């Protein structure tokens, strides 16, 4: 439970989603509205400026910078639509996987107000446990079940050893505690599994291999079967979580805790149990993410770095919204792939790692709380 909900001098108002209509509890604190303050007007103006620049760019020197930035990439898209489709597909798959990682962060943040820095290493830990158990001779699906057991034990241990003693501490302390969990899991994981990269047990889990090559748009667009499987599994996972949250008793309890810890406590919901459940759910998400990323590359501690890609997704989608994680993941995934492919060569390439943050910060100009995040207003 975040300390801000427990303090007697609670001054923060967390507003629910308000479907296009902004609710302000303190009208006097609101500055006088200006035309440019409206996000949609600003978006329209910037779009118009971009279109104008493109129009101007088309008339100017083809070797000039404006032409290269505003005209060339779009010409390439039109001239090679198959490459555009391939780029968008690659972005879509990456986006779904980013969304999966971000989902793990969102689940924990919603229920406990803790930004779980350890989510990335949980992905690595879950995948390594699965592969490590299989290496010891455990059949693949039994290894999956045992790994889920390990993730449950981890969730219960974190709740008992880390979260419970820190109840009533400032949020930043809990955040720092998740750093501790991260470094513990890195060290523990390396001691148990070693630092060597391992191969994901793709065939043993009956995950498909190979590609479907489609001759479309005047070229070849290749769809890796593992990527299709990742997209399908991630979608099923998200749907299952939505049903779980919406229709089950535990799901309703989780939502109650997310809305108000005090209210949830007052109707007899055990916060401790909820925290274990939510960390375990994040563990399940971590395992699925680990399997999918591991199948695409390898299972190694470098995956933890990839998990940090969820940060711009969260900035964009909001820290408390499951749809935000999904939409944010897709925008970041597709945006960074298009950016790297069409605009990256203009500045030497390798822009993907920071472009995601750039896109997220661009969105923040219009919606500081993220696309679907709760609008928080603090009285001063």
């Amino acid at each position, binding site marked *: 439970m975040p300390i801000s909900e427990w303090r007697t001098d609670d001054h923060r108002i967390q507003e629910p989603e308000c479907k296009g209509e902004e609710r302000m509890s303190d009208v006097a604190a609101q500055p006088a509205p200006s035309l440019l303050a409206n996000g949609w007007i600003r978006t329209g103006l910037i779009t118009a400026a971009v279109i104008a620049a493109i129009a101007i760019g088309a008339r100017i020197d083809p070797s000039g910078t404006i032409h290269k930035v505003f005209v060339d990439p779009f010409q390439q898209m039109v001239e*090679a639509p198959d*490459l555009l489709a*391939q*780029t968008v597909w*690659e*972005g879509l*798959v*990456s986006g779904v996987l980013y969304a999966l990682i971000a989902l793990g962060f969102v689940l924990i943040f919603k229920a406990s107000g803790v930004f779980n820095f350890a989510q990335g290493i949980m992905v690595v830990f879950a995948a390594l446990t699965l592969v490590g158990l299989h290496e010891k001779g455990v059949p693949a699906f039994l290894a999956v079940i045992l790994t889920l057991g390990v993730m449950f034990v981890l969730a219960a241990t974190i709740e008992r050893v880390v979260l419970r003693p820190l109840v009533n501490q400032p949020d930043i302390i809990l955040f720092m505690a998740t750093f501790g969990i991260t470094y513990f899991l*890195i060290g523990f994981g*390396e001691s148990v599994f*070693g*630092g*060597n*990269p391992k*191969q994901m047990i793709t065939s043993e889990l009956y995950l498909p291999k190979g*590609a479907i090559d489609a001759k479309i748009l005047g070229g070849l667009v*290749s769809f*890796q079967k593992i990527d299709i499987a990742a997209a399908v599994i991630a979608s099923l996972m998200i749907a299952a979580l939505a049903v779980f949250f919406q229709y089950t008793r535990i799901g309703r309890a989780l939502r109650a805790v997310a809305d108000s810890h005090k209210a949830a406590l007052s109707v007899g919901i055990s916060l401790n149990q909820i925290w274990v459940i939510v960390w375990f759910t994040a563990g399940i998400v971590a395992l699925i993410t680990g399997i999918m*990323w591991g199948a*695409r*590359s*390898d299972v*190694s*501690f*470098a*995956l*933890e*770095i*990839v998990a*940090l*890609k969820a940060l711009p997704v969260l900035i964009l989608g909001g820290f408390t919204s499951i749809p935000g994680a999904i939409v944010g993941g897709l925008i970041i995934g597709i945006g*960074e*792939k298009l950016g*790297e*492919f069409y605009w*990256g*060569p203009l500045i*030497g*390439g*390798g822009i*993907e*790692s920071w472009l995601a943050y750039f896109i997220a910060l661009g969105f923040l100009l219009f919606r500081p709380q993220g696309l679907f995040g709760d609008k928080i207003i603090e009285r001063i």
Partner: protein
Amino acid sequence: MMKSSMIKGVALGALLAAGAVVAPASAQDTIYFSNNAYRTGPFSGSGIPIGDGMRDYISMINERDGGVNGVKIVYEECETGYDTKKSIECYEQVKSKTIVYSPWSTGATLAAIPRAHVDKLPILSMAYGLSASADGTSFPWVFIPPLTYWDGASVMVKHMAAELGGMDKLKGKKLGLIHLDAPFGKEPIPVLESLAKKYGFELKLYPVAAADMQNQGSLWLSIRRDRPDFLYNQGWGAMNPTAVKEAIKNNFPINKLVGVWWAGGDDDARAGGAEAKGYRSLNFNAAGQDFPVIQDILKHVVEKGKSTTPKEKVGENLYNRGVYNSMLVVEAIRTAQKLTGKKVITPEDMRRGLENLNIDEARLREIGMAGFASPVKVSCTDHSGHHKAYVAEWDGAKWTRKGDWIEPMKEEVRPLIEAAAKDYVEKAGNWPKRTESCEKSS
């Protein structure tokens, strides 16, 4: 009573004195060698086999021969996680003890070079680090045998030309360089740019940020668009298996993807499964267990339970690379012992040993490494030797040699190295002028 106390006192004094005399003698019977290692972190996949090979060779020398000319080597690792900051901490910790600094990262080497010239501690950056440091006149304390990244890049160009049918066929072709966006990855760029200009081929650069080592989707889309004829992978750690997998996924001809020698790990190739068969990598050591030196490691170290390396991992390519690196250290110690007449050498002696390293075919045979590597000779002015490399090919289960050893384009590389060394010294400001004298043989 008083007499008895006096006798006891004298006896105690004698004992203490003896202890004082014995203790330093014991310390002097060893040589301390600290090695930077990374058994943790995103680069551990490459760091572990190399660290294992280095440690096991030194253990074998201690176990089989009782050390080098009777002096045991105390080998320790300093864990860096391939982090330059930690490498510098390691440098500071060991600089007063170790006879040579072994950075195991180009970034760490770059950071250590100015310090080492002040502290007078030799650096052995075996086939990595600053290519310009092959100029012994400007960098008397840095050694980079058997060849530099610039030599490697020129070998890659020669290999590409051979595959195409001659140097004249390079004109109009495209060579892509996939590289880690870090000092290590960027090292071959100047020489590739120079060779591209001379031979008329186009060089395309594909940088990979450390954060995206396992997320190379858009890079490979660019490769698909640019259609390079060959790809040279200056990769390390988790970047390599991902590159192999992406090449397969994108239907890039796997035998036209050639890694620098650090991209030739068994795990790097294995990740691609059966379709990785044909993946290539430059190499300067042999893989496998069929060498007397590897058999001795198995016999004296691994089978006696004195190593943590699994038996089946002994002989893998990067393991053998570690063995080769430790062999260079041991042979430099021997050379220093011979030059100075001392058994326990200092870092200054080690510098002389490295500078006069001369491992010919006969010596390779003596140390059980015939066919394992090509001869190495370092000199006062040439701290690399610019030795030959070969192209290794993954046969689906192991690395095999494909074709003959290839000489680097020394005539192209050496002037660039000397110019780069001059440039480095000028930019460094008060760079110490070489005062160390050259041996007659060097």
